[in-house]
């Protein structure tokens, strides 16, 4: 069971997507920069997309797995657009996009 076969089987895809997922979560939690957080979020969504495609390919003949992946990409794009707009205004108001700055509202 060499590396190539592994890469081609379902486990390979799942391994990649879970790695991506963990990286995304880690990025969201630790990045100071707001854009960094957005990147993390995109990673998580893509991980889900890979998952869908992999399962659709290996397990069921139906195409709805790919269809969902398509929708994920679409929604990720919309989300990114709105997120960037918000971060832009945040920058215009605070002249910085450091996530920890946003702590006016607390306890």
């Amino acid at each position, binding site marked *: 069971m060499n590396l190539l076969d592994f890469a081609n089987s379902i486990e390979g895809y799942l391994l990649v997507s879970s790695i991506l997922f963990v990286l995304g979560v880690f990025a969201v939690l630790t990045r100071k920069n707001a854009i960094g957080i957005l990147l993390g979020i995109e990673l998580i969504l893509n991980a889900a997309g890979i998952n869908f495609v992999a399962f659709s390919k290996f397990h069921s003949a139906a195409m709805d797995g790919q269809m969902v992946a398509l929708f994920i990409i679409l929604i990720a794009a919309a989300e990114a657009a709105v997120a960037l707009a918000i*971060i832009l205004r945040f920058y215009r108001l605070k002249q910085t996009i450091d996530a920890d700055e946003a702590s006016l509202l607390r306890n």
Partner: protein
Amino acid sequence: MLMSLKAFLPELTLVGFLSALFLLDGFVPKLRENRFPLVWVMVSCLGAALATKAASNLTGPFFNGMVLSNGLSTFFRYFFFFSCGATAYLTLSSKEIDSRGRSEFSILLLCLTFGLSLMALSNHFLMLYIGIETVSIISFVLAGFSRESLRSNEASFKYLVYGAVSSGLMIFGISLIYGYTGTLAYPQIAEALVKNNGAHPYVFYLALFLVYAGFAYKISSFPFHFWTPDVYEGAPTPVATFFSVGPKAAGFGALLHFILTALSQKDGNGQWTMIPGIQLAPILAVLSATTMVVGNLSAIAQTNVKRILAFSSIAHVGYVLMGFVVMTPAAFSSIIFYLIVYCAMNLGAFWVVGIVTDLQGNDDVSSFRGLGWNMPFLGVCMAIFLFSLTGIPLFSGFIGKFLLFGALIQVPGYLWLALLGVLNSVVSLYYYMKILKAMWLERPEGEVKALRLPLTQIVGLLGLAVPTIVLGLFFSPVLELAQKWVAQ
């Protein structure tokens, strides 16, 4: 196909009004100054409600399984349209949404309501995801609606980060479930689960939790409630009002739908039994208990009224979750009744807070000082809403809790949850009375000057206060309605 469109009529009317408003606003600029867009929203909600009435007899899946309309969904449709109309009525006199943003606000509001009904109707994970995303993205924008204020912007930023992560987790969970069951439509998932009766791999439970993350974020239950106080405090008050009623109910609708169709079977006489191998009750009980306790305890030492109401809404989520622990029709009808009652009193409370923040400028408890004496009508209404939120008899809040605890007590073994719930409502009395104490028990500094309330607000507040009392005494008609919806 035609049948599906007919069943989808309410949403379609909504989209029709939405696009009409969109065009009108584009071409007739002077519409902005007067209150036309908000009135338009109300008219569209009315239209959608009538459409729901027409479509309510069509039950069963539509759009080949993507959407399921039954008694529950008709209830949630009425609920969303009513709360959207009420919020529009509320913003008529609000200073935070001034003439400049009124039309954008209306369009976004209608679009949000459309997303909500999508969530409640969805019978398929994809439709669910789309619904949740539409609602989330529009709420990010609404949260940050007042451009200049830094707090509103911060609120939207936090909501954005938190919301995106949670829906990310959810979609990852959905992908895992898709992997395990091979399908995304709820009924097929149920069949797949029944097939390998009880021997579910660990990953499936992990996936269930991740999916719950999406719902929990929407209804702000314990692990995912951190964003609520900051967003409610930062967002403009009408927006916060709608957040506390609309999306929360949609979250419950979707969760209810998911559990009932995907995770359990409905046997002959309308009883739901969980698919073997899935034991949700203990987990939900712990979640409900922790949500209640967190909501109530953190509200104790608050001095900002909007944060108090935010935590109180979290606490109420805890009470509703109690209904989920017990899978009986009585429990679900009490959940529905509780949501109706919660909507009325919460809208009222937020509305009064909105009026006071407009008048006094800041939303600290001290700005409520001596208000009962200056504006007795406002004081009385607020007293009614707060007493009802605490669950004092004679008010509808008590009946809601009464039904919930009644359903819970019938199941042996969860008496401790009922006891915790009951003690929590005592604790909640303290912070509700903190507001009332400021309004009535402290005399205003200057001499008592009676401020006049505009007529619209009086009518609106009465529209919410009167049912809170009437439902407290004669609640059987509404209860029968709720039971009918659940039975369908």
